[in-house]
């Protein structure tokens, strides 16, 4: 039998099944936590960190990612505070370095909600806009649908990017799931624009 725990989200008592995340519990209690790399049905990934919330446990506060942190009995959660808002704003501004300023989708809504200045960091680090924030949703959604993925990550750190594996092109079922989940509009209904680089070109250093 699954136990139920009682926790406190934004001064409201919330009952939740043990094992679910703070994010799921909060959404049930209609508290609003933004996400960029989360999708119902996919395993939590914890890459965008925009869902950061403050928790209080044994008198200590810390910031955790709501999508990954499991609910606990007696946990106190704050989904909004000046500190949290500032962190979210900074994360959007950081994400804009690769995403660019001409955004669409969920990113655009969040940017205006937190009045993020998209050029704040972008202007300091001249980087070509790829319209991608590397949330991995397209890859994870593709694996979910096809047991494998035609796209994947390559590279480490700032060289990380989504690449295409042409030898797996047979598994693309043109389901458009990747388009549905893309939070920046990088993948449109007719495919990614610009195209994802080919893994062979990336490993050979051509792209």
């Amino acid at each position, binding site marked *: 039998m699954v136990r139920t725990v009682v926790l406190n989200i934004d001064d409201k008592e919330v009952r939740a099944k043990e094992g679910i995340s703070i994010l799921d519990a909060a959404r049930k209690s209609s508290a609003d936590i933004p996400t960029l790399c989360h999708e119902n049905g996919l395993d939590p990934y914890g*890459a965008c960190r925009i869902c950061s919330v403050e928790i209080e446990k044994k008198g200590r506060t810390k910031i955790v*990612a709501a999508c990954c942190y499991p609910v606990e009995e007696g946990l106190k959660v704050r989904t909004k505070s000046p500190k949290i808002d500032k*962190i979210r704003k900074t*994360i959007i501004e950081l994400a804009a370095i690769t995403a660019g300023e001409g955004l669409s989708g969920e990113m655009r809504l969040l940017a205006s909600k937190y009045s993020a200045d998209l050029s704040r960091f972008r202007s*300091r680090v001249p980087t070509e806009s790829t319209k991608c924030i590397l949330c991995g949703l397209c890859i994870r959604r593709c694996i979910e649908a096809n047991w494998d993925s035609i796209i994947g990550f390559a590279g*480490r750190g*700032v060289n990380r990017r989504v690449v295409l594996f042409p030898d797996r092109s047979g598994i693309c079922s043109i389901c458009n799931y990747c388009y549905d989940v893309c939070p920046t509009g990088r993948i449109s209904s007719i495919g990614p624009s610009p195209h994802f680089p080919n893994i062979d070109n990336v490993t050979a250093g051509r792209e």
Partner: protein
Amino acid sequence: MLYKEPSSNKIIPKLEDISFYKYQLRLLLKENARIDPKSIEDYISQGGYSALAKALSKMSPEQVIKEIKKANLRGRGGGGFPTGIKWKTTKNATGDSKCVIVNCDEGDPGAFMDRSLIEGNPHKVLEGLIIGAYAIGADEGYVYVREEYPLAVENISIAITQAEECGLLGENILSSGFNFQVRVHRGAGAFVSGESSALMMALEGKVGEPRPKYVHNAVKGVWNKPSCLNNVETWANVPLIILKGARWFRSIGTKGSSGTKIFSLVGKINNTGLVEVPMGITLRDLIYKIGGGIRGEKQFKAVQIGGPSGGFIPEKYLGLQVDFDKLDKAGSMMGSGGMVVMDEDSCMVDAARYFVDFLLEESCGKCIPCREGLRVLSKILSDICEGRGKDGDIKIIEDIAETMRGASLCALGMTAVNPILTSLRYFRSEWEKHIRDKSCPSKACKDLINYYIDPKKCQACQLCLRECLVGAIQGSKDQVHWIEQEKCIKCGICQEICNFDAIRKISKEPIPKNPLKGMKPIWRMEN
């Protein structure tokens, strides 16, 4: 032939009287010099494996954990998490099969504590691991060694084979009914794989990227089995505690941190190397008594502790006792025990830039705060060091630091800002000088300095003139030399080789005019 103390020129016949060794307490390292790491007999002759025999024959697993808890052994890999509690959590976690792991993915620049233990005394680590496995109830163990340590891989593999032959590994160890196997896994070379969850991903054959750890590895680790991962040095401490008891162990060190810690003491000091000291020793004793003070009569400026994400500690805290909690409070951390000493010639902005650039290379790129934060920080720090700093830069750095520290996925991102924040906290005026005056007070940032030949000191010997790689030095046999600033690449060779101390670095000051044509060195003018 005998060792001469450089400060007093006195001959010191005995090793243990040399000041480098005199103030150390080498509990873990002392056997390294006495045994052949490839011989189990050597280790046994030094009392090796008697702790394992004691644990298996006289103690229950609960008693072992209790002893470790009582000893207050804390994780030597950096976090300082109480080892006993970690073991207990793993023991209590549900799972048919449990795992113990040795983390020897030592990647900090200039640090080689784990390497020396595994290479020099692999059986000690193995003995600790077997005792831990017995206490936790684990049936398999892994030693994760980075690929760059081939001798470590060789020695630990030999140690495992020897232990298996002696019945110390395998089925029914020492007739206790306890079964345990160990395998060696070679890491594929990523700094972030030293992070426990990333290491477990790498063990599983996946890309070594951290995963959220809100459910501890002790409950759900490698292949979802409860897994207990400890650093090499932590495991090596276990046999000592079992053999000599928790009370003895607690008598060494401070209240919150017991035992000894190995540091890799490097930088601008006279004696560098691995040092093992009791916790609670002051930084001053470490640097001046053991390290022999700063090289070349220079002034101490700062010490950076804990690897690339450790903080700088300035001179006013030299009296600080080295233990987990006090270092944390000062804005630094114990880390794995790297200790880089810097003198007056080191620029604290440039030093912060060095570590940020290292971490930028090593960040896995999964989460936004760490990946993009480091990208911006690295660019801004380069700008400041190269004279392009702007007024709002410190504010931007602080905003990003707050976000990275609070919201990054793993400890790499959370602690990456320590060098910057401590540098700002203790050396803020240096930052302001870089940004506002475009000058480097330590005269280390190449773009903010010029080399200049003092015409009153130059003897026109032509040494620098001949050695200059780019031909930037002008003059002749009877003509005092000068540097053509446009050609100078600021390599500093001229200053190093000048026998008359005539070349100095200037920052921000106007460059004095070139000496007059035909100006002779002063001694010639007098004759």
